[in-house]
């Protein structure tokens, strides 16, 4: 039996995760051998690291995964389908700035995998750190709120201050730069790309909808369409006033509108409600939501740091879903017009698929 080289921690390079409040976690470097910084957030999802890492909503963030064993089933290939939609990922590239985990599987096992997580991170120049007590880190983030941090490999010096990604318009960073069309069908939906996940594209295209994907600041009111979809996306919705103005204009036409995540926040802002930053956000696969006024409850996948303030919703709007853990807003609807949105991710990927029916609801209104 040959003793594999990378088996022993003492033979690996050390790395440190440093938080802006000075707390340090010592671990080992994997993936790209270089430093990174960003907002440190945690997710309690137990599966789906390829999906999470490529989710544009993580733009600007260092992701701490609370589930300790990561990399088990490797990483699938980056092929695309006939429309150019990624088969296995949620976008064209990794969007997190760094990955923080406890135990890394350098060896992986899955028929669908072509490389290890370690190799993928190296290729995409994303630093990782393992050997971290992710539970302890999560407790700190929970108590102090999300904060800035950096991953610094041994032999590199890097110090605070670092730029706060929440002060930048992350949506502008991840949105497409030009109009892209997908799918074929009788109905046409304009998709405002604030950092759209590819599974949303799949959810529409598989249902026979033609999609016109437009940049976040594109004035889609010039286009001819049957319905408007506002996608998920990273960061603070306050940067997207252009989009909000466009949505307001679209609302006047009365055509159906559906928003997800950032889309929920932007629709709310267009309606006149306010958004605020949550202490540490919702990032998991197990967020319970209840459809207001019913006994129907759903387990949802979530990834957001900002939320809608229910109390600021104007008269003609009402909450559609409420988070059963903390009572925060999980979606809104217009009392008379076909406008609704969800704060969670009905397209899942990663996460539970309980609420995918919302796509059907929207399409039935077109």
């Amino acid at each position: 039996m040959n003793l594999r080289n990378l088996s022993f921690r003492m033979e690996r390079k050390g790395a440190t995760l440093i938080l802006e409040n000075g707390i340090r976690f010592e671990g080992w470097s994997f993936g790209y051998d270089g430093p990174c910084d960003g907002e440190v957030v945690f997710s309690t999802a137990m599966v789906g690291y390829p999906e999470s890492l490529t989710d544009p909503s993580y733009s600007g963030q260092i992701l701490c995964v609370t589930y300790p064993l990561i990399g088990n089933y490797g990483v699938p290939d980056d092929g695309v389908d006939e429309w150019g939609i990624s088969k296995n990922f949620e976008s064209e590239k990794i969007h997190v700035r760094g990955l923080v985990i406890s135990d890394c599987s350098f060896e992986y096992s899955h028929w669908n995998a072509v490389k290890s997580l370690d190799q993928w991170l190296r290729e995409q120049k994303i630093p990782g750190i393992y050997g971290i007590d992710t539970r302890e880190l999560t407790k700190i983030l929970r108590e102090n709120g999300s904060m800035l941090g950096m991953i610094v490999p041994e032999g590199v010096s890097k110090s605070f201050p670092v730029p706060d990604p929440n002060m930048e318009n992350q949506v502008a960073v991840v949105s497409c730069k030009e109009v892209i069309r997908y799918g074929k069908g009788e109905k046409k939906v304009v998709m405002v790309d604030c950092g759209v996940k590819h599974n949303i594209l799949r959810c529409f295209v598989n249902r026979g909808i033609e999609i016109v994907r437009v940049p976040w600041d594109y004035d889609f009111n010039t286009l001819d369409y049957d319905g408007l979809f506002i996608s998920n996306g990273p960061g603070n919705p306050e940067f997207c006033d252009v989009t909000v103005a466009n949505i307001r204009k679209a609302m006047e036409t009365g055509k159906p509108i559906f928003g997800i995540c950032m889309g929920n926040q932007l629709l709310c802002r267009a309606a006149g409600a306010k958004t605020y930053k949550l202490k540490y956000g919702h990032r998991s696969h197990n967020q319970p939501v209840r459809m207001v006024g019913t006994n129907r409850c759903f387990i949802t996948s979530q990834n957001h740091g900002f939320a809608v303030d229910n109390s600021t919703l104007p008269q003609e709007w009402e909450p559609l879903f409420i988070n059963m853990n903390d009572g925060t807003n999980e979606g809104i609807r217009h009392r008379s017009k076909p406008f609704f949105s969800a704060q969670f991710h009905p397209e899942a990927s990663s996460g539970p698929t309980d609420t995918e029916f919302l796509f059907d609801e929207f399409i039935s209104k077109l």
Partner: protein
Amino acid sequence: MIDSNIKKVVVLGSGALKIGEAGEFDYSGSQALKALKEEGIETILINPNIATVQTSEQVADKIYFLPVTPYFVEKVILKERPQGILLAFGGQTALNCGVELYKSGVLERNSVKVLGTPVQAIIDTEDRELFVEKLDQIDVKTIKSHAAETLQQAKDAAAALGYPVIIRAAYALGGLGSGFCDNEQELEQTCEKAFSFSPQVLVEKSLKGWKEIEYEVVRDRYDNCITVCNMENFDPLGIHTGESIVVAPSQTLTNEEYHYLRELAIKIVRHIGIVGECNVQYAFNPDAMDYRVIEVNARLSRSSALASKATGYPLAFVAAKLGLGYGLFDLKNSVTKETPAFFEPALDYIVCKIPRWDLSKFHGVSRKIGSSMKSVGEVMSIGRSFEEAIQKGLRMIGQGAHGFVGNKELKVEDIDEALREPTDKRIFVVSKAMNAGYSIDQIHSLTRIDRWFLEKLERIVLTYKKMQEYSDCAGMPLDLLRQAKMQGFSDFQIARAVYRDMAIEEAQTIVRQYRKEHGIVPVVKQIDTLAAEFPAATNYLYLTYNGTGNDVRYENDNKSVIVLGSGAYRIGSSVEFDWCSVNALQTIRNEGYRGVMINYNPETVSTDYDMCDRLYFDELTFERVMDIYELEQPHGVIVSVGGQIPNNLALRLDQSGVRILGTKASCIDKAEDRHKFSSIVDALGIDQPKWKELTTLDDINSFIDEVGYPVLVRPSYVLSGAAMNVCYNEEELRKFLSLAAEVSKKHPVVVSEFMQRCKEIEFDAVADGGEVIAYAISEHIEFAGVHSGDATIQFPPQKLYVETVRRIKKIAKKIASALEISGPFNIQFLAKDNAIKVIECNLRASRSFPFVSKVLKINLIELATKVMLGLKPAAPRKSAFDLDYVGIKASQFSFSRLQQADPVLGVDMASTGEVGCIGDEFNEALLKSILSVGYSIPEKNVLVSSGDALNKADLLGACRLLVEKGYRLFATGGSYKYLLENGVQAERVLWPSEENDPETAGKYASALKMLQDREIDLVVNVPKNFTPVELQNGYKIRRAAVDFNIPLITNARLATAFIRAFTSMKMDDIQIKSWDQY
């Protein structure tokens, strides 16, 4: 919301522990009862398992120690007039009973509403054909099975599907009577057996090598669904999930796969219409996105108990509430107390379940594991890496392993074959193969275990080898030491790798010292259901080296009392010690201390985080107990309520400065060490069977010249007679000694004279400062020689001389005083006439503590715990002489699951569980208890082989009674002759060996044939002697009785008692009285 008409509810328990149905149902039943009580509903529990926690005061309002059969449940319903019944909390026993009551209209006639999943949904999941049909309706793929009612039909189906196929018996407990068949010959064998359990067998295509994945699903009546947990089997399909190592959550599934199967599970559960809890088992293709649904259990199961412990989500409690009509959104997450029960736990650790087998306890049993369950218990280990969890778990199963590596060399003749044909040692064969240089691919292709698991295991091997390059800790990189601990290495394993020439205990101490000096210590983590997302003040804890922060802030006020639990259920140690642990915890908490539990058995109530102030779901090893002791800084530790595991730790803990409450560790050692104990007994002038320590063969020979055969051989540290045997001649002795010496090198093996035809008597008691303050004397029905765990026990004793009792009390007092006992203890005596000999003394609670406590209605554990806390409780005034009723404890055997095992009883324990029933007089109590362990009163034909002359004489009266009552007796040669000579009418049948003898063949009916044709209702087969020829003949009869599901009794005294009981009274004479009515 909830149905307010439901004021009284009957809950069905699962009866005695058996293979496939064990302590998990005590846990789920207890949770259900708690949920009902919280609603102010009166609870009526039917469960003859007297050693359980659920059959305790304050858990249920009324308890019936009666068989869970339609006959008795109907009687209780008629008496109690409940509005509702819960069927899903007592395993397959309760479910089958409930289905029968439903089909016969008993429930409807008495307006008893089934709470939770409707019975029709249960039937839809239990009947394979209906099940497949049901899932076909929603295009869910099942393993298509072809029902066959004859062998020919089965053959045709198999030919159509193509071999390999699997045969299953319909309506059977956990795979009973099922098996894989590679060809027609194997099909014939398996079918024959399967048909004996069920008129219908199912032939299915085998999916050997696929992954096995389970989801635990909860649904409320509003159609809200959650999956609380998924689990992945380490062993691929083909090995029963009860026989497999299981991890939670799944490790090798991608997000797409995980949620694909989750969505399917929810779709299935909605379509079937479950209300409550249910599990869905899948076969999953390892090479493509393809699945089959294996089965759906519409009830709480072993997996659901595991899922509850793995996640902290109380499935049984929630299921009971949903059965009452609540929605999931109405209920709270019982860990956070704030967030709702409608959520799916996020784990930030991995759990590993490992089965525990006790196959060495059985003669002739095959050690191969496969599609039917043989394991008797399980452990759950928790870690933050797979390596950590599995190494912990392998220590926890308590079969001498120190982890995945660093164990005693396993002897394997052919590694390839051992990998291909899994046995109970499979995981250690993998270890051996890795050490022998097998590649991951080779092992994978032979075992089909996923490469991911194998890669992780190989890392353990690599770390061990790396450590072997060093000869002391100081020379080793700290990171290597740290990595070893993160991979779950114990100090022992590290010591063995590094200090190869040093005494292991000394080396272990050095390792511990060194790593503590360098800050390599474990941290405590909470299981909080939400992966730290929400603050949770949970007391459900484990230790890990994969972390830097502690979740617990300790009070350091010396107000904690640690109770060491009993570990994995095994033959000789099961739910009774869980009852003891739970009662000790309750007493500790009632007395104002913090109750702290250490245990790792997911099938228990003591590992319910509601039961204590802090639960460490962790190892009961010296190392881990010390880790926890150092963190807790407790008032003291109780080692005497969890059976032998904590008892064995006492001395070392004491030497390391641990404060042990109650009897001193040195005294425990005096009782445990035969040599020391014997000298004490001698010094006190108490008689004991002659014995000698074994050193050389000459010694033995001269000793046996003195006492004569048979002799009893055993090592000094004994749990339920492990490696204990009776030897009838020199050859047997020599053969056995080589095995016994292997069990324990450190403690000498002793040979003692084996007393025949003696009474065996149990003395269970509590002493304070060496003075007995409460006791219970009980008497075995069988003569000594049947292990006390297998014997049928009567309390109070019915046939002891007053003088015998007096002498026993005197002796016990002397021993209690000599050993300065403070706490629970048990002494076993032999009595012949009034001559008394002591055979064993345990300074801990014994197996019979719950039984005698509940019959006597004095909680001996509560009393003992008060003693150990130094509270000087007053001696209870009541004595067994005041009882105007009788309790009988009977044993449950699981031979039907253990193919080829000889169902004969001996000094080694073989039963997997027990019941205890109370009656107004002996016969009634006996009948209740015998019926409770699965026997039925024979209708017509009884087959007798009555053993040697003395046994023949013992049985004569009973045989005469049978004939008088109109039974037809069939007897083998010698017994036939004896019966005839004594004027008892019988018909001769042939032994298997006589069938081909031209003198007898054809003249008389064949005993085996009669069994196969089910012409016999009861078999009494007493082994004549233990010579191979005799055993062989009797073996075939006994095995046939077991395989064809015909009641079998192998002991003349028990057979006589049973026959007297059922000939003296009718079923109708059996009183339906609850415990409180005695």
